[in-house]
């Protein structure tokens, strides 16, 4: 039986006579078969949210129920691809319908003809259960795709074979309680459902991002959650891109959700050229891109972050460390608001639906470091950009996000205007993972890491106070102790916090280099302190060579770090000799 459209209002369509409609069933709407999802049932009426532009859709047109839920297809071939918000492959769609997105196009998300070499990792006759890895496929040069038993199945493995298979061909047979079931590599998963895990583990390992201000001052754990709110032009997207490019996750899922088309293009052109520091392979080989740009249908934007999360969880279940970046969750929330308005729901604050904050909390809850059903350890880190109206984070999306995320990277337009990038405000930002991660930093980087960091953070906090005094009395009236703080704070800001995402060397700063710069600054600071306490005027430090050496450190490749470090020590000695002479 075909349903009949009775009303069209933007992305929301009402229909009667839909065949056995269930909540979240996927339907095909109108003559061109637009993709939609049932979001409300009322008597004989089904309310449908349509994932494509509804212009030209006519009252009386048909609605066909597919009797499946909005799902993602999971199999080898996801990595290196770019999809829209409901997992339509953009590359194939371009081949089919040209440079502009046509309506109602249908394309298999994954290549069904390509043969993958499957190597079993368990023997015939073994007892397997849902989520267990039974074999591997080399999906890209960087990543082995671990083929898992579909979650609902368990039993004896009656057949398993090595060989070249498409994602739809039988690779194994499991004697489940319902009978023998053929296993293929392709699996489907409803996007709105969490994939289950055995247990959640505490966050103990940092996600190293190569971004100095983040790794050193506001670290995020693997499996953690972070929010990046900021006004436009403060560098949310550049920060997200840097994270996608340089963080040490195994898999990156990047969801461009209601943002600019050219930004996705930029990722598509830069990622294949960037090389993984460890293996030298292209970073595109570990990345999945989801692009639902701002002018693409608003309902698909709502779905896009779930599509991304389902894929990310799938790779997490293989035992990988996955990081998902969503840019921007505010656009996702606006999509919710628009759909909610069309559904004539009672609005909450600023017109957002009342369930906004529970949806946001729900999304971030998908993060975590976990023991998978197969027994491996994997993690899913979620990093969401937030675009508060007017840069004011008192609005509902920012506030709901900050209640659930444990890291807050506060972008600041004043810093951005002064071209201090990344424009992350060191006074407002915080990371609640600091204590969880301190043991890791002490064991893997240096024992004095926590003290070093605290010492220099204190300088920055002190600087803010002194700057207020300067506003009243002027710089010259300051005592030397305060001038020293300003001097060191300036060095921390210019030579450590500022990082050029577009410089080949500076774009990624190894944790070793970060430590070296910090400890060098701290040594200069100690020297200044001892001079100031010995009544040596701070002006002797105004143009010392040591500062030039420090300034260069961030542009030095790791292999030359030691020699620069020795040079810095020499430069410190020069200061000591000079000041002693002067003092006598």
């Amino acid at each position: 039986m075909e349903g009949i459209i009775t009303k069209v209002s933007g992305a929301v369509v009402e229909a009667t006579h839909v065949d056995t409609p269930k909540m979240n069933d996927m339907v095909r709407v109108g003559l061109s078969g637009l993709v939609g999802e049932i979001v409300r049932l009322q008597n004989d009426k089904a309310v449908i949210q349509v994932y494509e532009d509804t212009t030209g859709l006519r009252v009386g047109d048909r609605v066909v129920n597919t009797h499946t839920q909005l799902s993602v297809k999971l199999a080898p071939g996801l990595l290196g691809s770019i999809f829209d918000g409901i997992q339509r492959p953009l590359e194939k769609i371009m081949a089919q319908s040209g440079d502009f997105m046509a309506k109602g196009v249908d394309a298999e998300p994954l290549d069904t003809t390509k043969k993958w070499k499957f190597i079993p990792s368990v023997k015939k006759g073994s007892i397997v259960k849902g989520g267990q890895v039974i074999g591997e496929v080399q999906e890209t040069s960087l990543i082995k795709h671990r083929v898992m038993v579909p979650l609902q199945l368990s039993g004896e493995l009656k057949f398993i074979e090595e060989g070249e298979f498409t994602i739809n061909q039988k690779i194994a047979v499991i004697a489940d309680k319902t009978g023998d079931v053929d296993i293929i590599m392709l699996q489907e998963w409803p996007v709105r459902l969490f994939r289950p895990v055995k247990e959640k583990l505490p966050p103990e390992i940092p996600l190293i991002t190569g971004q100095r201000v983040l790794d050193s001052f506001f670290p995020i754990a693997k499996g953690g959650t972070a929010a990046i709110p900021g006004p436009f032009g403060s560098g949310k997207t550049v920060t997200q891109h840097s994270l996608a490019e340089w963080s040490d996750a195994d898999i990156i899922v990047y969801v461009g959700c209601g943002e600019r088309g050219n930004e996705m293009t930029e990722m598509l052109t830069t990622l294949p050229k960037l090389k993984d520091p460890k293996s030298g392979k292209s970073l595109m080989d570990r990345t999945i891109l989801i692009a639902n740009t701002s002018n693409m249908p608003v309902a698909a934007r709502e779905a896009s972050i779930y599509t991304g999360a389902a894929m990310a969880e799938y790779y997490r279940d293989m035992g990988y460390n996955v990081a998902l970046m969503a840019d921007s969750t505010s656009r996702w929330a606006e999509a919710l608001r628009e759909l909610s308005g069309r559904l004539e729901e009672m609005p909450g604050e600023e017109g957002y639906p009342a369930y906004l904050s529970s949806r946001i909390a729900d999304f971030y809850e998908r993060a975590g470091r976990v023991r998978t059903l197969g027994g491996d350890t994997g993690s899913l880190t979620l990093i969401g950009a937030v675009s508060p109206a007017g840069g004011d984070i008192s609005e509902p999306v920012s506030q709901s996000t900050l209640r659930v995320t444990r890291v807050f990277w506060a972008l600041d337009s004043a810093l951005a205007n002064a071209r201090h990038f990344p424009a992350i405000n060191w006074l407002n930002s915080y990371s609640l993972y600091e204590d969880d991660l301190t043991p890791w930093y002490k064991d893997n980087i240096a024992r004095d890491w926590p003290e070093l960091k605290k010492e220099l953070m204190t300088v920055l906090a002190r600087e803010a106070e002194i700057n207020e005094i300067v506003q009243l009395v002027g710089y010259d009236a300051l005592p030397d102790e305060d001038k020293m703080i300003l001097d060191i704070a300036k060095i921390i800001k210019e030579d450590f916090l500022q990082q050029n995402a577009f410089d080949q060397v500076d774009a990624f700063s190894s944790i070793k280099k970060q430590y070296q710069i910090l400890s060098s600054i701290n040594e200069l600071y100690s020297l200044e302190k001892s001079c100031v306490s010995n009544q040596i005027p701070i002006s002797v430090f105004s143009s010392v060579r040591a500062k030039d050496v420090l300034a260069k450190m961030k542009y030095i490749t790791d292999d030359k770090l030691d020699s620069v470090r020795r040079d810095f020590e020499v430069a410190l000695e020069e200061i000591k000799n000079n000041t002693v002479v002067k003092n006598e």
Partner: protein
Amino acid sequence: MSDIYYKSITKVTNILLFLENVKAPAYNEMVEIKLDNGDIVSGQVLDASDRFTVIQSFGSTSGMNIGSTSVRLTGETAKFSVSDKMLGRMFNGLGEPIDGGPAVYGGEERDINGAPINPYAREEPSEFIQTGISSIDGMNSLVRGQKLPIFSGSGMKHNQLAMQIVKQAKVLNDNERFAVVFGGIGITSESANFFKDELESSGALDRTVVFLNLSSSPSVERIMLPRVALTAAEYLAYDKGMEVLVVLVDMTNYCEALKEISAAREEIPSRRGYPGYMYTDLASIFERAGKIKEKKGSITLLPILTMPGDDITHPIPDLTGYITEGQVVMNRDLEKKGIVPNIDVLSSLSRLMNQGIGANKTREDHRNLANQLFAAYAAGKDLRSLSEVVGEGALSSSDKKLVEFSDKFEREFVNQGYEQNRSITDTLSIGWELLSYLDKSEMKRLKSEEMEKYGKWTQ
């Protein structure tokens, strides 16, 4: 499609008509509204339903009534007929000629809403456009395919700035086919005349398609105008391979019209009365800028908007800034100081600058020079406001130099008038000249090779 005239109007407001029992209306379908006196006004379906259909009228609803005014569905969504005969012509917001000339025949009918460019089909914009304006070229460079709005305030000379860009813009070492699509949204006839005269005197009028909705024209038409204009631009760019510069003034009037319709539909407003979907709506316009792989043309979009109360956090500039690839901000304090154009380089931004500049594009020192100028100007401005509080005497000598630098920067780099056309080389050397006023040791953003090659320090 249908010859049925529905007389079942149940409600008329200043913009909207509500109809009962319409058979099979389509969402966004165009309709004809026929008045008693035989006048015909066009309209569009906003809500299609088997019970109540909501129609927005593109003309005034004055004279419409319940009972005898009738509505006919056309069976078509809004279309605009495109061909290269559009060049040199002038149309209203619905795409009807208003220059007294004949209708454009033989064109191809295109849906004015267009379709989103497949992100995979996009080409990253990377060709530097020289506008001849130092504060844009040097500090916030524009590239082909970019959408870069001008944020202005009421009473500022954004029209002159826009025309300066239109007249001077060129791509280095390139004489490709160039066209302008100009959309005037709710502008005064004086501004419209200014644009016409400027285009004519520069000889660009016959490469230009003009779409005009005056402040006296129906406001609902303003919703259609940018879409019609961009449909024309897409045709010129992607079918004819032209490099198209689209200027839309004033997007604030567009947003006001959007608010007006939303209020008439009794929708729940989000911030300051603007509809919650304004971001998506603006994006469906701005995202039509760009370049497509393996196609010759491009659409570069320069929307101009006036910030109500000069407030950059107002929803209109705010949402625009989140969609566009940067912004050029005009500043009232600079205007009062007599700096022309009054562009505030610090709050301006071009997100695509890095792609368009550097060796082989502009010059290898461009990025670092711009960063250094930004840093020094920002520091100087901060110190200037500090010295206003504590007095100049409290500044150290290097601080005083920075303050003087920031004044010189405004007077010599930014201030160039609406006539001067500076090459990028000129712009860069003015920048180096200004830096030589500061101590060489403070140049943290510059590489020593660059300072040796281009620096103008005496020793």
